[in-house]
């Protein structure tokens, strides 16, 4: 069974936000509207953070896509009182929506701040309701949600491979963000397969595992030239 992981090359990312749009469309992530967003109630499975490095006139901006990193030792899993979030055998931190009772403890525990709470019933202005993906549940008021690594796509590819009686090929599973990225900055694959692109990238000297010092064991890692400054860590954008 594969153990899924993701590599994000921030040297390639140009901040176009195509991944964000793709993620929202694929996963039925509702828009909160400006008023709700202003008070921190926007739902985001994936955001592109903007990090400004250097001092004028030598300034550059880095863009860092941030989503659930599907920790090996996930704090959210440990604090959920009803086990609505748990680790699957193939290494995802799954969120089971009907089980969630909305304590928001997981949101508090998550050091990556990538979990969102549904403060209201989701709605889509016509005709956007026609874009709802039937492979993904529409979440409801009072529960938490987050990136699933597009588990529905993993399941579909798994079904296809099982039908054809073969293993899943490297690069066959593509989450929506990876598929949409024009710079091919996001790579998804089996991190236990030494031949997979993700495994090979994980040996790069450019690897940085976000907030690794907390012992979370993130399964999403970044590739970035040079050292991370304090300004360059996910969650510390301007």
């Amino acid at each position, binding site marked *: 069974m594969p153990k899924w992981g993701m590599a994000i090359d921030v040297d390639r990312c140009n901040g176009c936000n195509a991944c964000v749009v793709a993620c929202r469309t694929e996963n039925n992530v509702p828009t909160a509207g400006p008023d709700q967003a202003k008070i921190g109630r926007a739902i985001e499975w994936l955001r592109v953070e903007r990090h400004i490095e250097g001092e004028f006139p030598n300034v550059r901006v880095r863009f860092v896509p941030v989503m659930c990193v599907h920790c090996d030792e996930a704090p959210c899993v440990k604090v959920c009182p009803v086990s609505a979030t748990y680790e699957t055998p193939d290494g*995802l931190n799954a969120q*089971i929506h009907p089980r969630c009772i909305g304590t928001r403890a997981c949101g508090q525990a998550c050091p990556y701040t990538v979990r969102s709470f549904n403060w209201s019933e989701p709605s889509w202005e016509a005709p956007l309701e026609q874009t709802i993906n039937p492979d993904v549940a529409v979440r409801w008021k009072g529960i938490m949600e987050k990136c699933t690594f597009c588990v*529905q796509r993993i399941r579909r590819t798994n079904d296809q491979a099982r039908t054809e009686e073969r293993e899943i090929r490297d690069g066959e599973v593509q989450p929506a963000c990876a598929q949409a990225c024009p710079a091919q900055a996001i790579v998804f694959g089996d991190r236990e397969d030494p031949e997979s692109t993700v495994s090979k990238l994980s040996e790069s000297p450019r690897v940085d595992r976000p907030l690794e010092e907390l012992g979370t064991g993130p399964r999403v890692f970044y590739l970035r030239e040079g050292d991370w400054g304090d300004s360059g860590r996910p969650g510390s954008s301007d």
Partner: protein
Amino acid sequence: MLQLRSTPSVLILGAAVLFIGVAISACSSDAGASPDQPIAFSHRLHVENEIDCSYCHEYYDRYAVAGIPRVSVCVDCHEFMEPVEPNPDLDRIFEFADAGKEIPWVRLYELPQYTHFNHKWHIQAEVECQVCHGDIGISDRATRHMVYKMDWCLSCHESQQASVDCVTCHK
């Protein structure tokens, strides 16, 4: 005196609670429901005529959904059959076909939107149709066999050593 006067109101309250309870349970558990269909279709007749389930439910072993037959599937056979006696239901098939409309069959089974089910894998695991759909093949009126609950699914998955990982069925 006070006790006598309060007795009827207690009875009325009790009856009201009972009525509401029955009404709620009738709404929330509708196994055995048999909604009126646009055409009085008998599964029994078709099974007795040795028509395999897959003739009409053509995707049952290939896709997630088994498929509800198009009106053309009905016409394919019935246009070559002379009814023994006049049957308005048979006439209605051709009315739909001539009007270029599909028969608006009423679904018996619908799972919650946060779950998904795949017929294909259950057929491959040699689960008989009757396990979930009951004796629909020998009945003249399509009736909901049961309302599927998670523990029922899980008991079978556990005994058959199928996956019990939550995301196998939850989406």
